[in-house]
């Protein structure tokens, strides 16, 4: 009986794998169907072609597909179906609505005439002159129309000129009443091409992006079963994702990862989540849920030419669903091992010109492992709940009011009350932060002009999770406020070819109250940038960008400028293949921590002694000079796209902590703490120049219906001009090889399967430790870390189609491991989720 059931299940699995009407990567599949359909229509196999287009539209609606279906019906002489489809197209309010309406009117006229004459031939191909009398003329016209159709098809398949806006991309499902079946400007005119907004601060095809770009879609997120943003980023070629705790991860691109990873700018809808007073992204405090994300765009490479400071190794832009573009209500609950519990409610809606999105959520999860047990005789646990790795309750509201075409006002805000972990630098170890995050954001769009403002806030208690009993505590309070305003202008013009110009100015005020920094610190930053994309001559395009940032300390402690130029050339010789070459510089500004810190770190076990860590207002910014060659290609027929990048990053003036220097006797006692200072370590610019060379390849494949494959590989080598490999932290800490592979299989009927594996090669971390024999001596110790693989899997089931979904997710299914010598021992977890969309 047991064998029978097992066989039954195997058979069921096989059945599922052979099921029809399946979907994998929706965009690629839809695109494959679209291209096949257009090809069949070109061969005048209208019925088959229209069926393919309908299938593409069913997978992922796009108004231009409707247009092409209507055209095909019209060409096939099926006027009624053509009219019906044209009307559906016009309902999506396309830019060419007047001309299409004229076509509809003409077709209706023809239809009436046809009905009146009953036997009159169908000549309604286009609102065009009457049919020629002779057969020869008809043949000539047929050939002309065929050429015209091919030309149109060609034009539709080519990237657009990019007059779209930089607002978040939106897929508007048909289930939302009152919202048209359309996608907004980010979707572009070419059906199913991948669109990005981050690379050039405007919507464009990813083929046109001047940087290596990876997009993680909402569908990718859902099928992955991931519960955190960093886990999703493992699929990005060249991404270094290092989880130290369930709520604490560091993410870098192309090496240079560390505790407090500070070289990648993280944005949510253009609002920074990079905490630039600390120089890190608190991933688990970002006040949005994965189910609110439309897509994540990852720019692998310098982005300072557009985004300024901290977009040194790349930009991660998290784009949320546009208000009003999702379900009216969606409930999501999750429970799993490790005391993992989460619940969220998401709602979209609209009232006239006002659209909104709101969400509330709660989540928590235990640490994977704890460093210390409770009730030890030597260690006191300061963490409010020493088992909890991450806990938070949050709410967001986002609304957009449209005054007319290209004119709208957006307001959004959110609040997040959370507890999570941080792993700071140097001698400091595992910290907790029990805090409150809040933001408010306002956007005004008036045609080519956009004003973007936001406020970010963090406050709360932070400190070591554990401290020796009797030792002075490093617990502290933090309050950070950041105000930012940005004015953007975009315009296209002709001058020796087509130009797309983007200019912007930005100002930022930062205020941080934190006793690690001394008195309240305040900085005002300003910046201006310009970018021009010049279509010099097809198939060559040039993209030139330049940004200048004014920083209050960059000139040896006085205000100074940082310049970030970028030049890229794009060569698109044939459809679907773009070759790029770029050179750019980027920088990371010194953080408040690096500039102002004065922190006495207790020497473990010697309560009368501390190690002084100080900031340095004379720091130079970290500098990157990057060169990149890339090839981005796609084969719509095969349902495949790929990206290949070769790069060289040259990094200098890295900011790090110096070795401890003994202090003069007069300076080595701190009266406030009653501690003697063993020495001082200060933030300094390193003398070494590091060169990272690497190659990255990413492939997305949807070869047959239902099967989606993603694979990527990245190899890199980091060297120093001064340090031997064994002494070079950035060299040995960067994994040389990273591999990712993921497979999803989805039946349209009810089942989804997904599994992915991310492999990271071994590393050696050079970290500071007190000497075992004498804790007042601080040593640099090498900590080897073995290679590891992160394996995740998901099985989903649509219990009630479009209404109730359940899923079982296995996370970290590989062998237990650590991703940093001081990080948690990561062990597997299993979650069950229930999603209800009433």
């Amino acid at each position, binding site marked *: 009986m047991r064998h029978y059931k097992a066989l039954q*299940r195997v058979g069921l699995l096989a059945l599922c794998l052979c099921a029809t009407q399946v979907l994998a990567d929706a965009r690629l599949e839809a695109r494959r169907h679209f291209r096949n359909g257009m090809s069949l229509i070109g061969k005048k196999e209208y019925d088959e072609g229209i069926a393919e287009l309908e299938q593409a539209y069913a997978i992922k609606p796009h108004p231009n597909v409707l247009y092409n279906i209507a055209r095909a019906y019209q060409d096939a002489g099926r006027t009624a179906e053509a009219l019906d489809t044209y009307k559906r197209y016009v309902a999506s309010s396309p830019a060419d609505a007047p001309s299409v309406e004229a076509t509809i009117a003409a077709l209706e006229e023809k239809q009436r005439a046809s009905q009146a004459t009953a036997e009159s031939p169908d000549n309604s191909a286009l609102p065009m002159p009457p049919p020629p009398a002779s057969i020869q003329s008809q043949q000539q016209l047929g050939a002309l129309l065929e050429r015209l159709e091919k030309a149109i098809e060609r034009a539709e398949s080519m990237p657009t000129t990019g007059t779209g806006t930089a607002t978040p991309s939106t897929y508007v499902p048909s289930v939302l009443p009152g919202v048209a079946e359309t996608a907004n400007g980010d979707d572009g005119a070419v059906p199913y091409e991948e669109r990005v907004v981050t690379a050039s601060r405007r919507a464009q095809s990813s083929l046109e992006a001047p940087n290596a770009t990876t997009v993680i879609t909402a569908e990718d997120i859902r099928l992955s079963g991931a519960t955190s943003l960093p886990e999703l980023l493992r699929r990005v070629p060249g991404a270094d994702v290092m989880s130290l705790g369930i709520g604490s991860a560091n993410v870098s691109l192309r090496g240079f990862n560390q505790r407090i990873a500070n070289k990648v700018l993280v944005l949510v809808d253009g609002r920074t989540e990079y905490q630039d007073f600390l120089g890190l992204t608190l991933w688990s405090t970002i006040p949005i849920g994965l189910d609110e994300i439309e897509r994540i765009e990852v720019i692998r490479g310098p982005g300072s030419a557009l985004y300024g400071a901290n977009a040194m190794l790349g930009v991660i832009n998290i784009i949320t669903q546009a208000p009003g573009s999702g379900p009216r209500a969606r409930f999501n609950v999750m429970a799993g091992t490790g005391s993992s*519990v989460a619940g969220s409610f998401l709602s979209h809606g609209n009232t006239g010109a006002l659209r909104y999105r709101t969400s509330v959520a709660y989540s928590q999860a235990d640490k994977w*492992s*704890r*460093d210390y047990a409770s009730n*030890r005789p030597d260690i006191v646990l300061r963490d409010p709940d020493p088992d909890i790795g991450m806990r938070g309750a949050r709410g967001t509201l986002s609304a957009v009011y449209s005054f007319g075409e290209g004119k709208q006002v957006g307001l959004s805000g959110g609040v997040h009350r959370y507890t999570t972990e941080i792993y700071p630098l140097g001698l400091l170890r595992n910290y907790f932060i029990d805090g409150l995050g809040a933001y408010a954001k306002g956007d005004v769009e008036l045609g080519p002009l956009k004003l973007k403002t936001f406020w970010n806030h963090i406050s709360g208690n932070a400190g070591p999770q554990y401290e020796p009993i009797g030792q002075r505590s490093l617990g502290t309070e933090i309050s950070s406020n950041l105000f930012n305003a940005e004015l953007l202008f975009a315009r296209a013009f002709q001058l020796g070819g087509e130009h797309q110009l983007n200019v912007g100015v930005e100002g930022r005020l930062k205020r941080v109250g934190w006793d690690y920094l001394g008195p309240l610190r305040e900085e005002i930053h300003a910046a201006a940038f310009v970018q021009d994309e010049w279509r010099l001559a097809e198939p060559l395009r040039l993209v030139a960008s330049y940004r200048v940032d004014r920083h209050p300390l960059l000139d040896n402690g006085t205000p100074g400028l940082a310049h970030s130029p970028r030049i890229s050339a794009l060569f698109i010789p044939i459809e679907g293949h773009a070759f790029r070459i770029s050179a750019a510089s980027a920088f990371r500004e010194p953080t408040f921590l690096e500039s102002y810190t004065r922190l006495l770190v207790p020497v473990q076990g010697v309560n009368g002694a501390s190690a002084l860590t100080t900031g340095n207002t004379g720091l130079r910014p970290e500098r990157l000079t990057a060169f990149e060659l890339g090839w981005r290609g796609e084969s719509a027929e095969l349902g495949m796209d790929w990206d290949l990048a070769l790069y060289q990053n040259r990094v200098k003036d890295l900011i790090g902590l110096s070795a401890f220097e003994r202090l003069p006797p007069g300076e080595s*006692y701190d009266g406030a703490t009653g501690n003697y200072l063993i020495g001082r370590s200060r933030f300094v610019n390193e003398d070494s120049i590091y060169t990272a060379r690497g190659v990255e390849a990413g492939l997305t494949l949807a070869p047959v219906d239902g099967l989606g494959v993603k694979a990527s590989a990245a190899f890199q080598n980091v060297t120093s001009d001064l340090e031997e490999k064994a002494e070079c932290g950035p060299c040995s800490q960067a994994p040389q090889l990273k591999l990712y592979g993921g497979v999803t299989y989805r039946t349209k009927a009810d089942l989804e399967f997904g599994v992915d594996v991310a492999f990271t090669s071994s590393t050696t971390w050079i970290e500071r430790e007190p000497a075992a024999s004498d804790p007042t001596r601080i040593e640099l110790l090498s900590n080897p870390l073995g290679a590891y693989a992160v394996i995740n899997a998901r099985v989903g089931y649509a219990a009630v189609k479009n209404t109730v979904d359940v899923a079982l997710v296995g996370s970290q299914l590989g062998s237990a491991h650590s991703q940093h010598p001081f990080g948690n021992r990561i062990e597997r977890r299993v979650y069950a989720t229930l999603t209800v969309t009433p």
Partner: protein
Amino acid sequence: MSRTLSSWKQSLGGVLAASLLVAGCESPTVVPTADGRQNIHTARIEGNLVVQSRARGNAVVFIYDASRPPPPQGTGRPIAFTVVPAEQLFGPALGTDAPGPFTAPFALSLVAAGKYTLRGFIDVDSCSAGVVPCHGSDFNPWYGVTSEPNTGDVGGAAVDPTNGVPLTLEVTKDAEGNPLPLTNVTVSFSQATAQVPLDRPAFQVTVVNGDHTLTAGAPPKVLRLTPQNIEGGAVVQRSKAFLVSFVDANRDGAPDDANGDGVPDLWPRVVVRKLADGPGLLEDNDLDRNGILDGILEEGGIDYVHADGTRDGQPDLVVLGAALVPDAIVAALKDENGNPRTTPVFVQELMVGVQAIALDARDPAAPARLDGLPKGRYSVVLIQSTGQTWRVPNELAPPIAAGIGLTGVESQAFVLEVL
């Protein structure tokens, strides 16, 4: 088909339900990371300081391995220390001369299982009290020339309250081998009984016979030690004379003669110890400066050949045979009747004889002779009966002082060099 799907749905539902039921409620396991401290189980010693003193200053408490006591009983260095600031210790009485007693809690963290002794002193700031000449709070643990008490400081220790004898404190282990905290320990400071009478025995060296070098087979080198007054920057040592006395460890009123050579044992004691090769002040076989001889292989320790041609497999504490020339001191320590004085006296100079023999003093009670004379630089250390010490060379040697913010004193660069 539908039946199969139904079965599958039931299975999946079962898995989901089961997973919900087993949703972990257990605490995460404890897995120490590569952080060295997380892999060591320790405890703590805590209690109160009890101070009876009109003098004011920070209290510094040192913890020593009981088997390596500090001077004058031994040459041990503290394992750790803690500071209780004067503001916390004396509270509102800080600006007064109230005698106390004053109490304040103290703690020594991360103490491994073992036996310990606690010593301490009040780093008295007599300048604030208007004393002339005065010492500010001048203790600094990171420099040899500032790491010990001076005149006016008030000594303290964890002692048996019944007899005042220093206690040996033991951090024990429980049945599972985890150390247990030691609480309610009292460290007592008394100005009346333990105020330091004089500064450290800072000295300068003059070689009486020849230069500062010594060779194998050469006659003993005679060094004259005279007080060195230092008043520059962070170091204030008003050393006018040396405090000398007979050793009377058993307090029987008669001078001890531990080695039975017929010459009474004297305070101060003198040690001529080999320094590590190269510049600087590191001592040979103690490159990590923790006061404990380095291991042979792990820490680069050196095992010298002993006089019998063997090596004992352990790093050696290399000293030269050295002693005070006793005649003048013994004479000074006898009264007009020729009887030994029981109280110390001051002398203006000390003569030190250094023989061309080298010893391994790993076991101070039974030094072993080494083969030949290990070449290199040697320091001269004077240990006073109060436990205060002075060493030449030290951080006041001009090349070193310049780099660490001290005022250089030429005489403090002296080294005895074995060629």
